[in-house]
């Protein structure tokens, strides 16, 4: 007992000493180290570094969420342009964002991350449908569906997130145009760690994906640059797919550049029936039916089945046919890449095919079924099925800095008069018509009552009073947007009689 007190006493003295020392001897001012003459560092703003290439601006209010609070509550209170800053803490919730231009920014302090924990009970961490959504600096763990999922929503930025075991996908934008996915670390995902589905103009840069079934998947999407990613220890590394049976049918213009695609030999744990469940363990890059895919300067090593597999749909995906999905991988271009040590342990179909070649090892590049391609320096690699490929017509893609759009996709412009018309015919016309009575009074009577007073119509829309005995009471149309209410009020007041004004049949 005594010795314990002695020990504690010594410890307390030591702690006091450290504290005193820190306060008395430490230099509290921060200093910058001057740049030596002659050195030219890159300056913020002068480069194309994607960290600052961000065209959305969030200049609304800042909403802070602290441990114990709710991110969704903050989203409810946010308006377009607002920035939601989330402090370290554990947030077990599903955050859905059905608004435009909302930024969600985690604040990491002393290595403590704001963490969304699905506890294997909640479906998705972030679900968004709005345009201009930014999600950064979150740790997301143990969800059942997705870490971050977008359904529509252009101009998205998803970066600096640390995602572990969030179910089917880590990051999954769908139906989006112009997006950036960068500096995310994603692992232990049962399908694709990063999955770009039915999107256009997306850059996927500087991510690490591992211990998942698929590392990065570009599916039924166009104009995607996948660069500088470290994709290792998945079942398959980089994928460019056409999946039949989806409403948007093509994949083309995909650049895989400067990626590390290494040791993707994790046994397949994809859900039965999923597309990725058919990926052979040990697949570095898989191009299935996608057109105009360019592979450049990737390091593709240690993938036990093949370095690169190129297949058509008929070979690759036993699915219900879709006559509108063209199934051949056309015009693949393989430029300079480093490939070695691939194919050490082939499986399945490939194993059988290689045996017919009296080979036990799988190739660096394996093409099977229909399709076409060209290659630079074919002799560098061990190949199968590309004997007929000629030399590539390009040497590099260095002029392609990004495949995102130079400007954000604009939100469709609708004038006040147009909005008024859409609202009148889309909503009001169910009960009101010009020239005759449907359910409510004819439109010209509304005109006569509120002549020159659109606000009067707006007030009535919000809070109708039954003014006429012979008409049913109008239900409030307060769900309409404020802009739509005033627009439709003005539209109604400006309407002119139709040339034919009677229609008296039952």
């Amino acid at each position, binding site marked *: 007992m005594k010795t314990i007190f002695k020990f504690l006493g010594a410890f307390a003295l030591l702690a006091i000493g450290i504290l005193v020392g820190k306060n008395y001897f430490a230099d509290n001012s921060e200093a910058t180290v001057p740049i030596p003459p002659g050195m030219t560092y890159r300056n913020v703003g002068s480069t194309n570094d994607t960290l600052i290439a961000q065209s959305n601006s969030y200049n609304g209010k800042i909403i802070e969420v602290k441990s114990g609070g709710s991110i969704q509550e903050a989203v*409810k209170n946010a308006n377009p342009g607002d920035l939601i800053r989330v402090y370290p803490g554990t947030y077990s919730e*599903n955050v*859905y964002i059905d608004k435009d231009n909302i930024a969600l920014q985690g604040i990491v302090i002393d290595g403590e991350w704001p963490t969304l924990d699905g506890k294997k009970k909640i*479906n*998705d961490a972030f*679900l968004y*449908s*709005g345009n201009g959504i930014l999600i950064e600096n979150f740790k997301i763990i143990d969800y*059942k*569906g*997705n870490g971050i999922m977008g*359904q*529509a929503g252009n101009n998205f930025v998803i970066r600096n997130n640390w995602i572990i075991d969030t*179910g089917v996908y880590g990051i*999954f934008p769908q*139906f*989006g*145009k112009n997006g950036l996915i960068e500096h995310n670390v994603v692992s232990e995902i049962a399908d694709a760690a990063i999955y770009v589905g*039915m999107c256009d103009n997306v850059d996927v840069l500087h991510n690490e994906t591992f211990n998942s079934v698929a590392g990065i998947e570009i599916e039924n999407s166009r104009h995607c640059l996948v660069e500088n990613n470290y994709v290792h220890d998945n079942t398959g590394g980089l994928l460019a797919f056409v*999946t039949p*049976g989806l*409403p*948007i049918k093509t994949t083309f213009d995909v650049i895989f550049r400067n990626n590390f695609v290494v040791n993707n030999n994790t046994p397949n744990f994809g*859900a*039965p*029936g*999923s597309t990725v469940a058919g990926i052979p363990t040990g697949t570095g890059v898989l191009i299935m039916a996608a057109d105009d895919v360019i592979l450049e300067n990737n390091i593709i090593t240690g993938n036990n089945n093949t370095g690169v597999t190129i297949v058509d749909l008929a070979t690759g995906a036993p*699915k*219900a*046919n*879709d006559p509108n999905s063209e199934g051949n991988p056309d015009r693949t271009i393989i430029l300079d890449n480093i490939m070695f040590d691939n194919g050490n342990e082939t499986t399945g179909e490939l194993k059988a095919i290689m045996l017919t070649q009296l080979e036990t090892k799988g190739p660096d590049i394996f093409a099977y079924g229909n399709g076409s391609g060209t290659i630079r320096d074919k002799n560098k690699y061990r190949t199968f099925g590309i004997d007929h490929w000629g030399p590539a017509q390009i040497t590099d893609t260095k002029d392609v800095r990004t495949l995102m759009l130079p400007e954000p996709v604009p939100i*469709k412009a*609708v004038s006040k008069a147009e*909005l008024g*018309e*859409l*609202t*009148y*015919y*889309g*909503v009001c*016309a*169910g*009960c009101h*018509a*010009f020239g*005759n009575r*449907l359910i409510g009074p004819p439109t010209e009577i509304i005109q006569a009552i509120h002549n020159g007073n659109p606000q009067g119509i707006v007030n009535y829309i919000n809070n109708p009073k039954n003014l006429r005995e012979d008409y049913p009471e109008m239900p409030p149309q*307060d*769900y*309409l*947007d404020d802009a*739509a209410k005033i627009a439709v009020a003005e539209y109604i007041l400006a309407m002119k009689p*139709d040339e*034919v004004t*009677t*229609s*008296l*049949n*039952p």
Partner: protein
Amino acid sequence: MKRKSLVLKSGLSGVFLIAIMLFLISKDVSQSYVTVLKLKTQCPPGFKKNSSNQCIAVNLYQQYDSPHDNGVGGLQTSLPEIRDGFSPQQIDLGRYLFFDPVLSGDGTVSCATCHDPKKGFADGLPTSIGHNGQKTKRGAPTLWNVAYLKKLFWDGRATTLEQQMQEPLFAAEEMNNTPKHLLESLNAIEEYRVMFAEAYPNKKIHEAIELHEIYTAISAFQSSLISLNSKYDHYAHGYHEALNANEIEGMNIFRSFVARCAECHTPPLFTNQQFAVIGSPEPNGLPLDPGAQVPFKDTTLRGAFKVPSLRNIAKTAPYMHSGKFKTLRETVEFYTQGRGHAVPKDENLIIHWHIWEPELSNYELDRLVDFLKTLTDETFIPQIPERLPSGLQPST
């Protein structure tokens, strides 16, 4: 000889007299129709008339774009391309035809018999019942928003409404008519001839009604059935108070990648208009319906059906192509009972990849049903005609 010619002459003049009398009578008949039904000159709600007398669809979803103009996406996404541009008169003529049993072989079945506006433009039956109580193989799909669909019938074998309607019109177990008999019966109704002349201004008033005019008018009416103003739509356009907490929770389950409903029932139409093999069971004792395999002669499409829209789904029980499930609750539960669990043992269907093991809880299934009920909107329901030119009762 003389006698013969006399007989001939008197015979001829007799024929002549009868002809004149018939002419006078028929004139009389047409005069008695001074109160002939007048076709509407205004477009139905949801449509604006342009200067060419065409009804053009107008709705709040036109504020938005959609990827590749495909009409699939999220909440604020434009709809697929619509079939519109019919005249108000054609649409209104189609309304009379739609409800008129004179279109069937024996005057007992109308389009509305199986597509009843009071039952969500379906019939509330597992599989529909046609002429003479004959049971058909599949359930009647709703006609709400049919103008947006590119594939018609459960197995997608028709691509236009005109093409589609010829099957039920002339199928023995449905309306049991023939093109010839249909034309004869409509042409015999003076009032319809006047109405057709009104709906087709290039047509002379006593010119015979033609088949394509019938098809166009019915297509015009069907294309006017628009339902886009549900509680869900209010939410989608930005009024988030439109849905209560349970309904929002249901919406998030619906679109999450666990349940994956929205992957095929994609907003804003709640269908991506593709085929899917989901392996849903047939009612007891019926063999597996091969679905799209038959018209497309493709074994990979065995058991495939068109993904139906879910708008007004709460109004159109029972569910699935042959009405196996009586309630929405049973229907959503199907999707969590195991991939392929209801596929007959001797079948090897290529089940859709989104059919998996989502392990949805009872609570989640209840919320899904809550959400599906927010897709109901019948504010633009058309009037059933009080009187039909055929003199028959409007049948539903």
